[in-house]
């Protein structure tokens, strides 16, 4: 380590202002902060100021994603082995197989996104930071394991460039870049992103996800029974050893991640809680008043199906694209929950609604903040008896 640090410091003048490689400073800086532990703290980006560097915040998110990543890798292999060979293989073989499927996707996401990130950082002279590590990891976790690699590259390019860099980089974006990338692929290449054949990495194997089974339940029959007969119970969906996007099947792993994010104070518990409440309220309303078979689903099932838990913990709480005011966050989370359930239950075009609900509320978040602030200003003025303030 000492040897590396010496080399690193020896090269520093080359990159500093006036040095030969001055233009490549962001790269040097990235190496500096990724590998060593410099004393920098953040002054801009997703928070105004803090005692820690933005990089520490982002790396904590990566740790929180850990359980979901590992489980996703295992599950991808598990599903493959289960359906290709018809028997469960050992955990080791599942992991190996899963790594074979998932790691290329993650690698392509990082490589393609990284090229854009470095290009923009170099030309525009901002720092490269772990914000991208989070985006580049969240994005593959929302994809089906059968996704063609070139689509991964196209998607992350769109997400990083249009979703983030044109706004000026980390901390400036309006929409969550990983979700922007995901939605872009969803609308551009629906065949590879939805349907029943994409969720298991075995050619020609068709395995419906709980959501598509629920949506396909015929009028008059019970949606819970339909799920049970397909092998999905509440607990199996909570555990998540089922077909689905790489990282999102297990609500339990997302819950672990939520624990880490809440303990370190990085994720907003306010958003997570209000989103769950929103989904439960809407689920109950639909159960009481709706009449399609899907709307009869017990509300708590919505929390473990599809990408709800994952989106709730890792996507909706993105501090940049979420609402910033305390009251605004409550409204924001609540509406995401409501809209997600509405879209997945009512909209025949999309089996899953969490992603689109979060994107929609990302669009509305600044407006919510604006109105919350105006209301606050008004109530303060009223309290102090200021006229026309």
């Amino acid at each position, binding site marked *: 380590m000492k040897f590396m640090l010496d080399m690193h410091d020896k090269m520093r003048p080359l990159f500093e202002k006036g040095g030969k490689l001055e233009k490549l400073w962001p790269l040097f800086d990235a190496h500096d902060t990724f590998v060593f532990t410099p004393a920098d703290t953040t002054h801009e980006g997703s928070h105004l100021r803090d005692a820690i560097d933005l990089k520490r915040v982002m790396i904590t998110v990566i740790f929180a994603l850990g359980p979901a990543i590992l489980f996703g890798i295992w599950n991808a292999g598990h599903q493959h082995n289960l359906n290709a060979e018809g028997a469960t293989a050992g955990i080791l073989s599942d992991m190996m197989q899963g790594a074979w499927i998932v790691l290329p996707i993650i690698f392509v996401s990082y490589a393609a996104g990284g090229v854009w990130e470095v290009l923009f950082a170099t030309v525009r002279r901002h720092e490269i930071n772990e914000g991208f590590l989070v985006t580049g990891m969240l994005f593959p976790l929302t994809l089906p394991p059968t996704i063609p690699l070139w689509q991964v590259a196209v998607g992350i390019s769109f997400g990083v460039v249009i979703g983030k860099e044109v706004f000026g980089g980390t901390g400036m974006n309006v929409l969550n870049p990983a979700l*922007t990338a995901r939605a872009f692929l969803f609308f551009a290449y629906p065949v590879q992103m939805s349907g029943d054949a994409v969720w298991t990495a075995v050619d020609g194997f068709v395995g419906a996800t709980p959501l598509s089974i629920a949506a396909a339940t015929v009028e008059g029959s019970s949606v819970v029974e339909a799920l049970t007969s397909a092998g999905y119970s509440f607990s199996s969906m909570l555990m998540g050893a089922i077909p689905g996007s790489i990282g999102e099947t297990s609500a339990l792993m997302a819950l672990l991640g939520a624990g880490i994010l809440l303990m370190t104070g990085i994720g907003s518990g306010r958003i997570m809680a209000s989103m769950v409440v929103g989904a439960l309220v809407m689920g109950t309303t639909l159960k009481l008043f709706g009449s399609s078979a899907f709307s009869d689903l017990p509300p708590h099932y919505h929390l473990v199906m599809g990408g709800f838990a994952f989106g709730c913990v890792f996507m909706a709480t993105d501090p940049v694209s979420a609402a910033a005011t305390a009251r605004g966050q409550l409204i924001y989370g609540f509406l995401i929950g409501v809209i997600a359930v509405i879209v997945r239950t009512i909209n*025949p075009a999309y089996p899953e609604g969490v992603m689109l609900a979060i994107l929609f509320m990302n*669009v509305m978040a600044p407006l919510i903040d604006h109105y919350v602030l105006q209301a606050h200003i008004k109530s303060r003025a009223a309290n102090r008896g200021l006229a026309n303030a």
Partner: protein
Amino acid sequence: MLVDYINLALNQIFVENILLAFFLGMCSYLSQSRKMESATGLGVAVIFVLTLSCPMNWAIREFLLAKGALAWTGSESLAGLDLSFLGFICYIAVIASLVQLVELVIDRYFPALYTSLGIFLPLITVNCSILGASLFMEERGYKFGQSLVFGFSSGIGWFLAIVALAAIRKKIRYSHVPQGLRGLGMAFIVTGLMAFGFLAFSGIDLKTVTKKAPEPAAPAVEAPALEAPTIDIPSDLEDEDLEGEA
């Protein structure tokens, strides 16, 4: 009945938002979204004009212009007339006079807003979303009640879109946006991304929940039908429409 109206209203606000699904009325939307106040003011003005112009144009069409509409006069020769070729000019005349009215009111009671809206207030006359709404109404054969709800909710949709854009532009005001994209360029990109967000609702039909769905839900879609809502603009309209936008 009420459910149909609510369905139509939600449809106009979220699913077929006149701005973010049809991209009508872009010019004032882009130019007046720099400040929250002017965006709100213009939004309210558009709601007002749309709410009145749609039912008024409906009445004009229903009782004066459509084929056989003049039958109520009792005269044989009038009953045979088809004056629908006068549609555009009549609609525009109604819209223009409504805008005059709005202008008088705003000038009298909100002089600051009047100054900040400037030329864009009279230009509501040629705001595509307003003439567009009247033409959609005609195309889809709405009844009176529907046209009222349709106009009002289209206006709400337009209002929502412009204030959301204004809030986003306020948020990114100090962002380090590439030089060439500052201002209008960014507004276009943000508008595109907003339309992305609104896609969440495309395809939603309240009827499927509130009434007994007649057909079993289609098995999970292989490739969801994601085509944009079809825009039926008569071909002879397009030219004038573009000129109005410019």
